[in-house]
């Protein structure tokens, strides 16, 4: 599955599914977010066909979503399961930091 760019409605719909979710909260003005973009794209390709939804939320366009989850620094990657946050990682990290969490929860 390709990387999904969520708006609030799409995000909430995905949240209600029974799939694991990994969401990158980012902003256009943030260098570390740009660094993370190819990593997220790579992970989306690697996990194609698995039971996981990988997406991004632009905190400037979807401010209420960022506020709902108390995102105070970008990038912040939050993992969800059954509608609830199970883990978050602040700052851009190498791919393994995210795949470890995905593998542990799939």
């Amino acid at each position, binding site marked *: 599955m390709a990387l999904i760019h969520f708006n609030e409605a799409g995000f909430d719909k995905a949240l209600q599914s029974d799939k694991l979710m990994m969401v990158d909260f980012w902003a256009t003005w943030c260098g570390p977010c740009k*660094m993370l973009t190819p990593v997220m794209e790579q992970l989306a390709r690697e996990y194609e066909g698995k039971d996981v939804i990988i997406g991004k939320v632009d905190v400037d366009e979807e401010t209420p979503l960022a506020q709902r989850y*108390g995102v*105070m*620094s970008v990038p912040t990657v939050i993992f969800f399961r059954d509608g609830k946050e199970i883990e978050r990682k602040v700052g*851009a990290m190498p791919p393994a930091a995210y795949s470890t969490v995905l593998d542990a929860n799939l």
Partner: protein
Amino acid sequence: MSYDILVIGAGPAGLSAALQARVRGKSVLVVAGDDRDNALYKAHQVDNYLGLPGLTGAELLDRFAAHARETGVERRTGRVLGVMPVGDRFYVSIDSDMKEAGAVILALGVSRGKKYPGEAEFLGRGVSYCATCDGALYREKRVAVVGLSADAPEEAAFLKQLGCQVTYVAAKRPEHLENDIPFVKGVKLEIRGEKAVTVLEADGEEIPCDGVFLLRPSLAPADLLPGLETDGGYITADRDGRTNIPGVFAAGDCTGLPLQVSKAVGEGLVAGLRAAEYLDQTRQK
């Protein structure tokens, strides 16, 4: 934009490394903050640099920079926020931008700043190192700017412009801090809160705030590049400037004593050459 080699730091080590890599035909970008943050810039007179006695630190820096520029070294002012190895490439984030390189040379100088109590605990929950990145998330909120770098007053003005209620904290009020930004003198700092930051304590004075922007001249090596081996605050590097991460080299004050120009220039030369060789070898594979 992609470079062969990206050098972080524009002191004697960084510029020497950049020059040597250019001589070997590599494209080089040097990224550094304000020259005023450079330890050498503050030296009134340097008398032990062979053949060029009596110059001020700033004069030496100017000569080094001009020499590097003449060989085609590109330079950019900014704060590097992270280095990420991906395959045999590196992504480097610089403020709101990102660059790519085949090798990275760390010439950061000494980062003397120890972490403040509460800093690591509240990172991403009120503590930020990047006004450009996170400022907009603090619109209409109270933020404290801890000004440890020369460009911090401008960053404080940027945050104010975004709509943050800014208090500036430093050892002394910088001359070019905007007049209507309140200043609190503070050296001994502690960040406190519960789920997120609520207070910055500065020399015993409590400043209620939702965010604390810690603006140092550069990030600590291990924050810049997670997994980088350090010892007592210095980067562990061998005689070739190699760190424990393939493709990442280090030179100058950030590798340890003595903190001297000649040593930095020499280590920069070695790191520049070895980084160029490293690239040639990885390309052959």
